[in-house]
């Protein structure tokens, strides 16, 4: 058994203010090593990517199963190809799984749209009328895409504060201790980040 394969991800190194562009530098290093044909890194990366089917299945269920169980394996492969192509772009702004999750969500949406177009073209799409198309005022899809785009445009520290607050469910005091900020400083950054995010969301919706 290869011990490296099941080794836990090393803790991410951080500077005092969480200002590095790649806060998850251990993940970035893993990706680089895997791309350099480091066998242990590739095994680790494969383990990390094994969350793809789980994410797609969960997201698909959450959306009311626009894709059938038989269609999901195809999408798993498509998404793995997309991820593989995009790996050089991974900057470590978020954990690898978060980055993967975002790709999975967007690819699932695209697959649902394609299915609708395909079935409609075949003239037998009555049962798929409920899968909205891009041009039909997709509030949820726009929200997903706007949210992801907005998060990726935030200053790394602001994005991290939002994630710590709402994903990790940390208090402002805990986040402050982690980032070397006072709780009121964290609240100020938190407010600023939410305001920026809101602007992006409104921009997305206004442009749709």
């Amino acid at each position, binding site marked *: 058994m*290869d011990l490296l394969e099941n080794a836990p991800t090393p803790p991410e190194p951080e500077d005092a203010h969480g200002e590095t562009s790649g806060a998850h530098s251990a993940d970035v290093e893993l990706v680089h090593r895997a791309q350099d044909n480091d066998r242990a890194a590739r095994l680790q990366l494969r383990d990390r990517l094994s969350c793809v089917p789980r994410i797609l*299945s969960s997201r698909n*269920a959450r959306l009311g*199963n626009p894709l059938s169980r038989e269609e999901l394996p195809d999408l798993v492969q498509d998404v793995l190809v997309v991820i593989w192509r995009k790996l050089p772009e991974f900057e470590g702004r978020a954990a690898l799984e978060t980055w993967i999750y975002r790709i999975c969500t967007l690819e699932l949406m695209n697959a649902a749209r394609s299915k609708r177009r395909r079935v409609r073209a075949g003239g037998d799409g009555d049962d798929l009328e*409920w899968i*909205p198309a891009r041009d039909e005022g997709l509030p949820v899809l726009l929200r*997903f895409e706007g949210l992801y785009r907005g998060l990726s445009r935030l200053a790394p520290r602001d994005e991290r504060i939002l994630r710590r607050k709402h994903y990790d469910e940390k208090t402002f005091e805990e986040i402050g201790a982690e980032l070397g900020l006072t709780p009121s400083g964290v609240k100020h950054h938190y407010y600023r980040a939410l305001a920026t995010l809101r602007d992006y969301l409104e921009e997305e919706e206004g442009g749709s």
Partner: protein
Amino acid sequence: MSETEERRSRLLEGVLAGEIAPDAAEVEALRASSPEFGRELDGLLRARALLERDFEEEREALAPGRESAPGQELVGPTLDRLAAGGPADDAPRPTRRTWLLPLAAAAAVLVGWALLGGDGSGDRDGPVPLGSGDGLRALRPVGRGPSFDRFEFEGMLDGHHRSVLRIWPKDPGPLDEPLHTETFRGHEWAAPPAVLSTLPEEIEWSVTAVSLEGDELGTARASASR
């Protein structure tokens, strides 16, 4: 910063931080005197709600314990192939699995990384049984009818399943949060008046059969109006 701006910022930060209630008297007073403040607060609260929901869904999707998701067994072979320099535009499809496995094995030998050492990792569990629930069909309500009082579907199930019903308004449809979600046993569910009164005139609904082990067995969906 003027006193008004300071008060405005303090209230916005306080509400967003959860320290001041959105309907606190001071907030309501400023909302009444400044529609712009109200709009800004509503926009921020909406952004926060979206963020909370999205992160909640991400946590759910990444939660351990769902290793048997469809396509799990394809992760290793597909990555082997990509690592071996296989054409990314022509990824092997499950419908072409007859040549997928030899190809993946050849790639693994060539590259010599993934399958060497008999590592026993969890992504080669083999195909997942589809279960007996595929081919579920929605029976009622479907199309126009007098009421949504009973939701019913059919399909070959062994009885040891739970059914998850989700109901959405027709517009915007199922990509939004369901208006109502109900888990029940069997093939039909009678909607109580309290739920019926919340449903719009046009709905979309789906029912997913789930095995005792948590595997999805199939889904039926329909639209209906009353």
